[in-house]
């Protein structure tokens, strides 16, 4: 085996140059040329400054914005430099207490809502950075947002409908709404009445 080590180290060195430097370099060059926006993080601008990424969720607290799912990334949630999940198991007391608290908070913030809250709105995502909520979760918040913005429920619902993405090819994934893009659209077309 020892006489093979020479070949092994040389092979490792050349493979490092090929697959560790040349290959990522080539991919970077082509991607920066063809898919510049995506390659740099799908960053979204509003009024001239970058407000986030179309793929990364954000924390929203104010009543006039749609809220994202709870997040376990970083200390305050949605820390995009420290993706993380709760990793709570189904019989963990902390999971049940957290969901209970979220249910209470949701009903407090949305007194108009009388239904059962969709499961995605009360659970943390796998990445802690999920940009989407389900259409049902948006619908559940629509009345609050309309009231906070002083507009009719119908207007808000139209914007929700326009921002609902269906399943890919009618088959893959789930219908969903990008919360940041939805909130940006609200600010554009239904600015909050001061």
């Amino acid at each position, binding site marked *: 085996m020892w006489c093979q080590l020479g070949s092994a180290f040389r*092979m490792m060195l050349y493979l490092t140059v090929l697959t560790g430097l040349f290959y990522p370099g080539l991919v970077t060059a082509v991607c920066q040329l063809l898919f510049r926006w995506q390659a740099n993080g799908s960053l979204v601008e509003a009024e001239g400054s970058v407000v986030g990424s179309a793929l990364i969720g954000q924390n929203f607290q104010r009543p006039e914005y749609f809220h994202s799912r709870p997040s376990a990334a970083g200390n305050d949630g949605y820390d995009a430099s420290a993706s993380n999940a709760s990793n709570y198991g189904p019989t963990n007391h902390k999971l049940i207490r957290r969901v209970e608290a979220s249910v209470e908070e949701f009903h407090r913030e949305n007194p108009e809502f009388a239904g059962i809250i969709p499961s*995605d709105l009360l659970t943390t995502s796998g990445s802690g950075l999920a940009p989407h909520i389900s259409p049902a979760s948006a619908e559940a918040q629509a009345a609050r947002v309309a009231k906070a913005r002083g507009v009719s429920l119908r207007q808000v619902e139209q914007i929700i409908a326009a921002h609902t993405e269906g399943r890919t090819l009618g088959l893959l994934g789930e219908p969903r709404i990008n919360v940041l893009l939805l909130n940006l659209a609200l600010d554009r077309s239904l600015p909050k009445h001061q």
Partner: protein
Amino acid sequence: MVEREAAGLGLELPSELVSALCPTGSLSRSMTPLGAFNIAIFFLAILALTKPLGLYMTRVFEGQRTFLHPLLRPLEKLLYRLCGVREDTEQRWTEYAASLIAFSVASFLLVYVIQRLQGLLPLNPMHFGSAQAPSNATRVTPDLAFNTAASFVTNTNWQSYGGENTFSYLVQMAALTVQNFASAAAGVAASVALIRGFARRQANTLGCFWVDLVRSTLYLFLPLSLAAALFLCWQGVIQNFKPYTTVKTLEGITQTIAQGPVASQEAIKIVGTNGGGFFSTNSAHPFENPTPLTNFVEMLMIFVIPAGLTYQFGRMVGDTRQGWALFAAMSVLFLIGAFICYGAEQSGNPELAQLGVDTHATALQPGGNMEGKEVRFGIAASALFAVVTTDASCGAVNSMHDSYTPIGGLIPLFNMQLGEVVFGGVGAGLKGMLLFAILAVFVAGLMVGRTPEYIGKKIEQKEVKLCMLALIIMAANVLVFTAISSVVGFQKNGYWNPPGPAVANVNNPGPHGFSEILYAYTSTNANNGSAFAGLNANTPWYNLTLGVAMLVGRFLFIIPMLGVAGSLAAKKRIPATSGTLPTHGALFVSLLIGTVMIVGALTYFPALSLGPLVEHFLMLEGKLFAALRAPLWG
């Protein structure tokens, strides 16, 4: 209601069984037609790709011309010349194994050194490994560097760290991406050597490791990764060398968004069934897996090479039915696992349903158990990914297995315990399935009192002994380490395990905590790398024991299997007679599935009953677990 629906499907299920498996009490609540259709479409896509890729791979490893030769052949020759390899060399199994080990030693040292020196090396815009590193950065200690090096060299890609706050871009590329190629190529090489053991007659050699390594890297992994990387980037996966971007969100909060050369690493992570994410949350992270389409393609890429290998096996031994028989056995195990896992996750957590959470799927929301899952994938694509990644030795995750329901989490765990024989990682799965095929014909031979044969080779004492040796080492590797970590005590705030006893590192109290430990050693032994990620594994005790489990799981499996290959290659091929058990029919496929299930179940049932099984029944009774009991030590 349950009985009525079951009867409608023409099934007679005992009502206790239905209510035990299906907490919401209704089969229609545990699956949606579209979700089931997703699983079926995925399977059909794999079925369609198996033969074309298998044919291509056969050509590559038999040294025949492919459409990529005009471009890559000069590069291949150049690599041989630079490394002093003669292309027509033939190695005995011992030399083949020695080359593989030498290559792994060189890889290990290089990965270890690059990690430890990252603070001094370029392409490190966030200054990891130096004093200016971000405040949430993880320090790369010797034990963490050992664990990571063992992890990537063995194709496990277990991660005790979170990528975006631990490693520079150079480490991610020149150490980790390279190993994604190299460890996968070495795994494929060893599988091809095993196939040659069956295919050759009265030969004492198995081919040349270096040639197989270079060919699989150049003709298989590089082109597939390049195509996959461009596709992923088009869909939104990032690829740049910038420092992290800081933005002001709509509500005026500062958000720091991690960047990096992700697409190139993501592609080979999937194609090479490595599974080590650029980011901490792996393929759940929107920058690694942004859309349902990338999710589907990632799952396809995980399975396609292992599936192609079954066809290559049939082709090289001269009877493609033999390959399809293995494919059939794998398919049955895959589909059973996929539907059980999906059913359990779509049924959801009954404890949440009681709190006023809508876990019933509708057209407007996914329902089910969404803790640790992304809305863009929903339940079906998450559960399918979990099954695919553990059938194969991939270990990438698009949802957090730790938060699965007990039965949903049992399936990934059991898949790995079966030895990842269901398609398996690049190469690893075929080796495992051939091991079980040898055992299956051996068991059948015992029943009728006849020397067993497989693919025209007599299976004798030596092969069966080597197979059993590999099996016993694997089982002991999982169970002994799990047992030790369940009881061993350490000084609190000491060096070995600062949280105190090894059980203090779990994130979930009760049986789920035991499942976390069992999952960790199962995953590392099987070279999978997925985790019940709540376990805090970045301590010297876990880093070292998990690292050793990975090395044992890789090399003490591959070496006996190469021994089997060497022994088989030397044998004559005997013609099939009327007394030969045909190994391409339904009878053999059932026997093979039975062997896999019985060996797996007998070995792991006791451990599984202490973890996910007991948790399942306690969950149905509404039992919750608040905190660890008083630790045994410390």
